């Protein structure tokens, strides 16, 4: 289980509540079928890995890993054998006599894991354990932790603000915003069927494209009206969303992922746009195209944008003022478009997302 959300969304608080480090104002927390409200953190049989590892700086690695066992009055010989087994599992055997400050970030991270594993608890709680590592190490530790978790088969609650981490590590992920759970489910489901505009914008990199459009209806079906052009919706899209009828002549938000947009005439309804920038990434290229239209600027959107980087939010606002929208298209690397070209972009209709502008909820049934 992975909790993911922008900083300050309450995911760490939720984790600390589970751990018993914060008091719960209402509701109950169960482990198995035991209610653990009001039970001391140490009695809950959960181990926690902290963001800054929280290693005891004055103790050797051995003592650090042994500490939770000693707190439980485990016999000396058992402490020794369990610590050594854990250290071997994590490749820390040769560092057992060292102090934490002499270890690298990745090694400290492993010690923190070791201190959790050695207890053989009912659950692991991990609070952004990889956020203090450099990018390369993070990828490596990501798979190490995943493997470890699979081998040990222990329930793990993992908190992160990094949605890539969430997608790759979680069997189920929960997206939070401002203390409220937005959606939970397997990563692929959350990615493909976001329940609301925040989840849609937050998950995925580069993020989903959004633009505001008016839903129109004529005798041949539904269409999305943009300044100067329209996009006809396929019958499949409409029939999957009975609630759509209520939005006729109202504005809603259309969302489409970069890989669900195709360049050039592929048949099917398309939009005209101008290429404004091309990023060649090797395996693929990202084509930035601009068209007249209204960007979606809501609190959720800004929050999701800020999480990517601080300038993204101001870019968003600037575009909204200029009545321009930039969409990102993920394309083959050998594309021959140039900046300034007029292109047609064709959305894959069954991967189109429609959201209510007010509530942000996906328009579905």
């Amino acid at each position, binding site marked *: 289980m992975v909790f993911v959300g922008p900083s300050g969304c309450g995911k760490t608080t939720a984790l*600390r509540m589970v*751990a*018993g*480090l914060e008091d719960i104002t209402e509701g109950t927390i169960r482990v198995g079928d035991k209610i653990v409200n009001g039970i*001391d*953190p*140490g*009695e809950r049989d*959960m*181990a*926690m890995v*902290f*963001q*800054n590892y*929280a290693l*005891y*700086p*004055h*103790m050797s690695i051995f003592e650090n890993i042994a*500490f*939770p066992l*000693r*707190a*439980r009055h485990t016999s000396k010989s058992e402490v020794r054998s369990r610590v050594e087994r854990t250290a071997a599992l994590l490749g820390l055997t040769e560092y057992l006599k060292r102090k934490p400050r002499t270890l690298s970030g990745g090694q400290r991270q492993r010690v923190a894991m070791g*201190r959790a594993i050695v*207890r053989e608890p009912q659950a692991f*709680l991990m609070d952004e354990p990889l956020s203090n590592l450099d990018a390369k190490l993070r990828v490596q530790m990501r798979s190490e932790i995943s493997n470890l978790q699979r081998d040990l088969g222990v329930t793990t609650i993992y908190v992160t603000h990094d949605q890539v981490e969430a997608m790759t590590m979680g069997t189920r992920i929960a997206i939070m915003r401002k203390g409220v759970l937005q959606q939970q489910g397997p990563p692929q489901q959350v990615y493909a069927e976001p329940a609301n505009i925040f989840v849609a914008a937050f998950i995925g990199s580069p993020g989903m494209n959004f633009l505001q459009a008016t839903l129109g209806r004529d005798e041949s079906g539904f269409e999305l009206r943009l300044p100067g052009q329209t996009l006809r919706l396929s019958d499949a899209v409409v029939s999957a969303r009975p609630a759509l009828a209520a939005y006729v002549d109202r504005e809603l938000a259309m969302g489409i992922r970069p890989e669900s947009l195709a360049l050039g005439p592929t048949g099917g309804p398309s939009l005209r746009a101008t290429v404004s920038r091309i990023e060649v990434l090797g395996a693929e290229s990202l084509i930035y195209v601009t068209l007249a239209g209204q960007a979606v600027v809501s609190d959720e959107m800004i929050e999701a944008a800020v999480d990517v980087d601080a300038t993204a939010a101001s870019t968003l606002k600037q575009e909204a003022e200029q009545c321009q929208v930039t969409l990102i298209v993920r394309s083959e690397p050998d594309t021959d478009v140039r900046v300034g070209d007029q292109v047609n972009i064709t959305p894959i209709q069954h991967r189109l997302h429609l959201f209510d502008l007010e509530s942000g909820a996906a328009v579905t049934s």
Partner: protein
Amino acid sequence: MSVQRSSSRLNRSRRIQVRHVPWLIAIPGIVLMLGLRFLPAVFSAGYAFTDWNGLSPRASSVGLDNFAQIFSPSGALGSLGNTLVLAAILLVVSNAAGLGLALLLRKGLKARNLLRAMFFIPFALSHLATGYIWQFIFSYKGPLNQILDSLGLSSWKHTWTGDPKWALYTIALVICWQYTGLTMIIYLAGLEGIPEELDDAVAVDGASKWMKFRRVTLPLLAPAVTVACTLTLIWGLGAFDQVIALTGGGPAGATETLATLVWKNTFLYGKYGYGSALALVLALIVTCLAVLQMTLLRSREEQL
């Protein structure tokens, strides 16, 4: 042409400056330290082997006579004992109490700042004033004896500061009262330096309160312990003001410390040579004990 040259010279000198902070600006501090702390100490050590009376232009060497007198039964052995007792009591009591208070006031209390201030005020009081307040409290008709009266313990009444059996302990009590506020502040500062995540880790690891204190809090406070113990040891060994204010060294020398003897001999009796010898003994004791204690505590810091 000339402009260019001067600017390139400027650049070069600036580059050198950037690399090094000049020693020049440290000189005033170094000179004052050497001139006012170490030079007089050397001179003083020289006087210690003379019979100089402070007035006569001549002083003759008396070898080790002054020291022989200090360590003779009629000399300063009693004061030496008093000094060590005071320092030991201050060291143990004010550190234990200060640490206890710091743990008590650490967090979560509403009146935390007020409470800290209340415990700290005695330290801000001049030693002399402290001495007088307590002299009043300990006086025969004073508040302490009145409490004993009202508790029906009239037989326990004493002229506390005038009783050779009690006088030294009244002084010990007063200096402990005065310095506990400072040790508390030092330990509070040390506690603030312990990352909160460690508290959380200890809680999740399920350690008992005692284990947390013994295995985590205390070891991490080691630097604060070193500072607080060193300061209280130095101040305890140098106790002077409170002694003068409370007992003046009496009754019959029962509360005389090395520091009061230094003062009396040099400035009241005009025995500069003997006074300097006493000061030298005091300095050696303080230095040795402080360095010894610091070495022990520092090695603990490393080890833990």
